[in-house]
């Protein structure tokens, strides 16, 4: 199935094409792929993050569906 993944802030450098930026990339993944599977596939660092699928909050165990848009934000310190 096909999903899109948007990586924000410094995580954008982990997109497979290495081009960075905030644009979402398209991925073909197996059925029943979880958010955690995608994080592992992209080798994202183990750090705090906030996840949304189609604008709804998600976690690592959430199973993705065809056409989903996964967005991953790493909170940035400062306040």
């Amino acid at each position, binding site marked *: 199935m096909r999903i899109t993944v948007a990586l924000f802030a410094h995580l954008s450098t982990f997109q497979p094409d290495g081009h960075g930026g905030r644009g979402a990339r398209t991925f073909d993944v197996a059925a029943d792929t979880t958010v955690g599977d995608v994080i592992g596939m992209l080798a994202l660092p183990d750090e705090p993050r906030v996840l949304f699928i189609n604008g709804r909050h998600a976690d690592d165990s959430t199973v993705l569906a065809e056409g989903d848009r996964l967005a991953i*934000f790493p909170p940035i310190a400062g*306040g």
Partner: protein
Amino acid sequence: MSGTGADAQACPPPLTPSDDLAMRARLGASHVAIVGCGGLGSNAAAMLVRSGVGKLTLVDFDTVEEDNLNRQLFFRDQIGMLKTDALADTLRRIEPDVDLMLVRECLDEENLLGVVEGADVVIEAVDRADVKAMIANVLCTDAPDLPLVSTSGLAGIDSANEIVCERVGENFYLVGDLHSDVRSGLPLLASRVMVAAAHQAHAATRILLGYEEP
């Protein structure tokens, strides 16, 4: 307005600027919880009070220190006071009738929901990235209908025009440039901090008035 969850979803349609009395009435009946009373929270609180928001919950466990004065809304004679108490004094000088709930404790996954209960909007204004993530993950999971205005990326001297407010989830709004991290040794300048705080206050105000986009 009042209530977490379904009540927040059931708010009336957006008010237009010509509905001045209705707009003031709605803000006056509104409740914003501000988690963290440092550079973001103290300045956002003052803007919300000046805009007529009737009730604020102020959350912070820390005391005012001299090195806070370069960007936080505190004064030299408040050094050593709890930030919640010092900020409350200042806000009541702006608007004596503002209703303030002061929470002088450190938030965690266990007490967060109880602390923000009854708020119409939550402003996340803490400094640590892991606490920002905890607040977003707890509220987006357990109170998904409660709008949350969070911040990521306001340090340094890059253009203030890079700091924007985006709606990145149904009820999750994110302010910042998404890259300027204090952990990289970047300074926190009053001007950039206040731009971010103003975005947070304005996004909260718009949400209270019924607008979904920041």
